């Protein structure tokens, strides 16, 4: 039932299995860290990435006995922080907490001064379980019925937040040759508001919709990630519903400027992997109605490259 795309889950599982043998003490050089580590979040305080970063920082502090200072450097959809991070020393004392979208998509849209290859990838903390949702009383239950509705009405609208979601809707419109129109907006909350008010036919969402589904106000039309989503396990993926569109793969990742010493890289990778499995971190993910997932260093680097190639092809003229 679970379809593994891009080989990432495999990498994640093997990383998880390997590291269980060395509990709660990462293998680190003797003099590292000799001062507090700064974790720079690419988005504002209180947001998803921020909460994940803080939860992980707390877990690592408890497990390793380090001091981690969390700072926010929001702006330009994560580009602000990434461009700044690239210029920082690769000594392991500055870790960026960001999203795969910020690393892969921003450089494809405009000249932000960095690309995925400017960073070393330490690990990841969570996958966003994106879905296409509609009001419970919407006259369609799956992707094909939505397509049929668009065909009958002449057009159907989907409120989106983010270029990746917009591209997905465009792919679907082309694939099925209907007027399925992406309505970009100021954010996920606005997209959800439009859908709840019945101003659009459906919306793509990352987190806010889960509560609406549980309350019975909305229903999942299709999972738009690379597997079924745990909050609605009966609803099929894009592929299962007959679409060849590229699913959205979005993880919260931890990176440093390129050129980290291998010993320090190993140390930080292990610390992050142990942190993701910490009880306090697992609890925080439950509060998110999600779960911790670390793709590991290699898995994340590969994902960043593949996503960058995909979005470069889609967005660069």
């Amino acid at each position, binding site marked *: 039932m679970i379809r593994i795309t891009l080989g990432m889950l495999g990498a994640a599982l093997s990383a998880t299995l390997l590291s269980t043998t060395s509990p709660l003490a990462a293998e680190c050089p003797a003099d590292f860290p000799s001062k507090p580590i700064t974790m720079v979040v690419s988005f504002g305080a209180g947001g998803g990435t921020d909460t994940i970063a803080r939860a992980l920082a707390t877990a690592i502090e408890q497990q390793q006995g380090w001091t981690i200072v969390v700072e926010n450097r929001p702006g330009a959809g994560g580009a602000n922080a990434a461009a700044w991070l690239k210029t920082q020393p690769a000594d392991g004392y500055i870790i960026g907490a960001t999203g795969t979208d910020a690393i892969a998509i921003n450089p494809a849209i405009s000249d932000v001064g960095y690309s995925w290859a400017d960073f070393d990838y330490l690990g990841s903390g969570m996958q966003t379980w994106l879905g296409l949702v509609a009001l419970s009383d919407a006259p369609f239950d799956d992707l094909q019925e939505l397509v049929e509705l668009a065909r009958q009405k002449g057009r159907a609208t989907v409120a989106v937040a983010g270029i990746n979601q917009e591209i997905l809707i465009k792919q679907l419109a082309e694939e099925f040759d209907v007027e399925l129109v992406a309505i970009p907006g100021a954010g996920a909350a606005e997209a959800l508001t439009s859908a709840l008010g019945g101003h659009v036919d459906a919306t793509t969402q990352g987190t806010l919709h889960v*509560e609406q589904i549980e309350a019975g106000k909305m229903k999942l039309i299709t999972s738009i990630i690379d597997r079924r989503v745990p909050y609605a396990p009966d609803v099929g993926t894009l592929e299962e519903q007959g679409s060849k569109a590229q699913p959205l793969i979005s993880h919260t990742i931890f990176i440093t400027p390129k050129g980290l010493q291998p010993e320090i890289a190993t140390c930080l990778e292990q610390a992050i992997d142990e942190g993701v499995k910490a009880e306090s971190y697992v609890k925080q993910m439950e509060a998110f109605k999600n779960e911790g997932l670390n793709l590991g260093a290699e898995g994340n680097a590969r994902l960043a490259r593949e996503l960058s190639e995909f979005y470069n092809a889609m967005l660069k003229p």
Partner: protein
Amino acid sequence: MEMLDHLMLGFSVASLPMNLAFCFLGVLLGTVIGILPGIGPLATISMLLPLTFGMSPVTSLIMLSGIFYGAQYGGSTTAILVNLPGEASSTVTMIDGYQMARRGRAGPALAVAAIGSFFAGTVTTMLIAVVAVPLTAVALSFGPAEYCALMVVGLVSSIALASGSVVKAIGMICCGLLLGLTGVDIYSSQQRFTFGMLPLMDGIDFVALAVGIFGFAEILRNLESGTSSRPLVGRITSLMPTRDDWRRIAGPILRGTGIGGFLGILPGGGALLSAFVSYNIEKKVSPNSAEFGHGAIEGVAAPESANNAAAQTSFIPMLSLGLPASPIMALMIGALTIHGITPGPNVISRDPALFWGLIASMWIGNAMLLVLNLPLIGIWVKLLQVPYRLLYPIIIGLCCIGVYSVSNAPFNVYMTMFAGLLAYALTKFDLEWAPFILGFVLGPLFEHQLRRTMLITGGDASVFFTRPISAGLLIVAAVLLVIIVLPMVRQSREQIFVEED
């Protein structure tokens, strides 16, 4: 009856010693950061968020929301005393509040702001208790077309904010509109006016701009007089409103509360609109309309009641639907999520103690603010007698810290200085900045909603006239435009005839 039970539950939760203590701490902190120029509730709440992890969810929410509405109180103090808006909505309070202060009436201005806010807070707390859920349905029925029409009403009525030339006001609104477009266009991903600079990709920061335009420029203007030790305001007559003042503010406070209470529930821009829609209404209906812009007490009472009412009702979409109406509400959602409560349609029924406890605490918090602020008025007013050479460096220092904290980068501080110099130069030509600010804030919202509407309808503009709320709002805008422009046309025709004679 059920309502009474709910309120009883709420008050029993809110009056737990722990919750009372953190409510007080919240409103006190809020008042302080509201008064400090440049440091807004958004920055404070995001900094304090991690500290609330150890509290119970309702306690942390009570404290964080105390900071939020406490800052509204404090913000009006700075707006009135030193002409510095902490956030967009106090721009309106400044117009008449600062003029009152210059005339030695800072005391009554501050008192009216506090009393108006308290009244609005009390009424809207009741409102939330009674009609939170049906109101949410109204808010959801506001689609892009309705928002767009609402923004038109806002833009048209912002012309009325000007006390001088209407042509200059329109010019300033257009400048604001243009600057407001700075950043990445979300529909095409194209950059506008960014000169390739990353810090401008999200647009020009409001706090940086407003602190420069109002704060720094005002300081430059005051330095011009050359006397470095003269106190900031005229002689202080009395601290409390007179009987005549009371008579004048009753209507504005009532109307302000109504307008703010309704517009506050609309996600996005509602709270700001409420402050100056209510100001403009008072300017039109008041028998003292000639006094507006020169220190009319109604011009403080109306927007202050409206923005506090809106601050309270902006919790409705967050609590009843899990929808953040503003970045601050998004932070509150973050705070709840950390405690394992996902705000959504189920919160009221699943966690009634949280919902009603918060609402009861808002009323308690407002009462605390009134008790806290009224005696402080005397102290604030005395603060203004501190000589320039001490007060100004402190204000500028605090502004720079606040602006720097927006994104932890010096870019915004440069922006503030540039805006201050520019504003100082342009004020020499009698250009007014309140219409500019409204153009700056409302313009991008208008554009966003217009394009959203057109995308949803596939380019069919008739939707603005076929949807009743949108059509009604556009008619209001048209009537407003006639009321505002007609006297000007008549006046200029009269001038022409005079010249011909």
